């Protein structure tokens, strides 16, 4: 048996290259913010946790919406109580967890920064990222299901990649907003 099969290599490489290019966009955005990082280094501390949380919450929301659509509990283009409860659940987790990220950052930085401001930055960034990401996920889940495509195969990978870009932009915007107070 050959050490590497070209078909397997092509399958693995094409998937990895696609996500690599999406992450490169985040990388370029990050690399052009050196002056902002110098002014507020905790951005590097907050970023991994915020992006991971974004992926967790949005990924779970995408999976629940997909299951709900398959079960018939959620119907395409019907924004009822089931959809609302999913949104409230996701927002609640976001608020609690982003507050925790702010508190962890406060202790990690040796209490150099104001706790209320760190928590305000992380919560605001989390909410700012949540709203557009969750809206896009919901619309794509409903659209794919409506068109006969299984949302499970489309929405979760999209949720995590999209969550990274939107999450980073939201954190950037929030820090710029709070910069005079930092």
């Amino acid at each position, binding site marked *: 048996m050959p050490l590497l099969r070209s078909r397997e290599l092509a399958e693995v490489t094409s998937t990895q290259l696609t996500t690599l290019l999406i992450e490169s966009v985040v*990388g370029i955005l990050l690399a052009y913010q050196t002056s902002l990082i110098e002014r507020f280094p905790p951005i590097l*501390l907050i970023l991994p946790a915020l992006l991971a949380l974004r992926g967790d919450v949005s990924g779970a929301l995408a999976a629940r919406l997909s299951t709900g659509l398959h079960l018939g509990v959620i119907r395409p283009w019907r924004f009822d109580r089931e959809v609302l409860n999913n949104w409230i659940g996701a927002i609640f987790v976001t608020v609690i967890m982003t507050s925790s990220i702010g508190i962890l950052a406060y202790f990690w930085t040796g209490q150099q920064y104001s706790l209320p401001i760190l928590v305000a930055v992380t919560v605001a960034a989390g909410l700012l990222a949540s709203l557009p990401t969750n809206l896009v996920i919901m619309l794509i889940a409903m659209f794919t299901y409506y068109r006969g495509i299984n949302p499970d195969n489309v929405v979760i990978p999209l949720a995590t990649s999209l969550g990274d870009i939107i999450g980073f932009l939201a954190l950037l915007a929030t820090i710029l907003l709070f910069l005079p107070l930092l």
Partner: protein
Amino acid sequence: MSYYRAHRIAFEQLPFAFLTIVIESLAGGILYSVHHQLTQTAYLLFILPPIINLAGEAGCIYAARLSTRLHLGLVAPRIKHAFHLREAGLVTASATVCATALVIVGAPNFIATTPLLILLLAPYTAIYITLVAMILLAGLVSILAFLRGLDPDNVSIPVITTLADLVGASAILLTAFLLLS
């Protein structure tokens, strides 16, 4: 009565989400500790998100393929089989293509501000450090899970995705240490 309840969604998700942010904060802490080096060499900031992403993907691919081979009986569940040359070769070859793509994408943006040696070597160094760690982690977790009668798919993937950022951040730290010193 609603099928989905907001408080149930929140209470079921919170413990796992909290574990995630504690581990991710460790990854963030590593980056925070080298923020001077990272801001001086913005190219390292550029490769950071792709490297972290690649760490998770390479580990998951290696673990998932090893798990399938364990279930099919194609490989014996022994620690010495945690490292499999063919499987490691597949993820390494793919990661090498990705490292080259990073150099190609990064060069036009950072050639003016980054020494050529770092421009060429940083993605490969960070990716290979990441790969060694992720392959060993994925292999050991999969074999140990299988030996304990657990399905490696259910154990190794969550462990790897949680630890990938920590491994990726450590790889950037090591790369900065090796290339910038």
